[in-house]
């Protein structure tokens, strides 16, 4: 059972879909049933950051070993992370339209997500501008590490210095305080694990696909 975690991902996500839409949730003003978006919006960001973090680890590995495999892993993890980032932005945007009244607001966390996207799209542009494989691996690894550390500082420190519309910031009560009751926790935690596993599964498939492509070329 080497692939037990893939089965776990499927089970958890099926549970998230069914339980997320059917299990009783607390009734909140403004939020109402849109509170169910918590199972989809928040795990996207967790998955994205984890994917980028693991990608950075592979970039470090690539710098120390010089193996192209590590570079392939790093770039495919970033690719998958970008997809999760886009999904997180879309789910957040829809949620914001229904609760805050606008598709996009000038909120620190929204800006943070936009900058994250910009950084990793720039990483892709950087990769596109080099032809030599070894050189591309090394130089993009340097940028990946540099950008990730600064990104963590940005999304870790700045939101705490300014107000945000998000729960738990700027005087807004956090979900944890009263409205994330046991029913919601029952779905939320499996959802997080499920989406993270799905993210790594997708990255895994892309990495293997890349390896096969490279074997076909040489």
């Amino acid at each position, binding site marked *: 059972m080497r692939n037990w975690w893939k089965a776990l991902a499927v089970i958890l996500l099926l549970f998230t879909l069914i339980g997320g839409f059917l299990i009783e949730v607390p009734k909140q003003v403004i939020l109402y049933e849109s509170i169910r978006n918590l199972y989809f919006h928040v795990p996207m960001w967790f998955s994205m950051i984890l994917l980028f973090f693991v990608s950075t680890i592979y970039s470090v590995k690539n710098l120390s070993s010089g193996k192209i495999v590590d570079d392939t892993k790093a770039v495919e993890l970033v690719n998958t992370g970008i997809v999760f980032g886009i999904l997180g932005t879309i789910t957040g945007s829809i949620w914001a339209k229904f609760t805050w009244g606008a598709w996009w607001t000038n909120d620190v966390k929204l800006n943070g997500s936009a900058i994250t996207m910009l950084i990793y799209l*720039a990483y892709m542009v950087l990769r596109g501008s080099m032809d030599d494989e070894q*050189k591309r691996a090394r*130089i993009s690894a340097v940028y990946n590490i*540099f950008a990730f550390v*600064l990104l963590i500082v940005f999304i870790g420190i*700045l939101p705490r*210095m300014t107000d945000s519309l998000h729960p738990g910031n700027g005087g807004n009560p956090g979900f944890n305080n009263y409205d994330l009751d046991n029913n919601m926790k029952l779905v939320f935690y499996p959802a997080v694990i499920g989406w993270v596993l799905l993210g790594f599964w997708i990255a895994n498939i892309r990495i293997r696909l890349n390896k096969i492509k490279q074997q076909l070329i040489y």
Partner: protein
Amino acid sequence: MLNEITTLLKKDFTSEFRQKATLNGILLYVASTVFIAYQVFNAIEELTTWIALFWIILVFASTNASINSFKAESSQAYYYYYSLCSASSIIFSKLIFNASLLLVTAGLTFGLFVLLMGNPIENSILFSLVLLLGILAIASTLTLVSAIASKTNNNSTLTAILSFPILLPVLLTAIKASVLCGLGFGWEDCVVYVSTLGLLNLLTIALSYVLFPYLWRS
């Protein structure tokens, strides 16, 4: 190592004084942009506009100044330097050179702003500290990024694309701190922002020191 740094710095400063290409370019750039801003705004009434404009012009001028910081070290010269001194002394000498260039730029921009659009800053001692730390952070980020970009085919565009998303945390913190200084707030209110800028400085310099040798080797 200190010896190597001073020698490299001397070489950079002498070539800069002989050619004056970068400095003159920056002077003209700053003068013309500030003049355009003056034509549009005349006297700026609002503090936030003044500060935002000041930092935006400064960031663009800085990017222009550091785009070519590794131009002289292209291809052949790289191998020569490589045989002479260690990577860390090269990055430190470039960092010091860029930082001093940008400090001159910042001083000039500030002078022009005060001359044309008045000086709204109440707490100028604290503002100069914020300016110093901000410029240092911008210089260290741009130095590493331009080293990365110099390894690729289209240097000038990439420096901007790669550095702007990473520079945003620095800029936002510096602008917030500058607004507080402008309003006349004291040390207690700005200490969070000043220490964040300090932390960003430490991080970028440490990362440059660790990562630059890998760029160098390729």
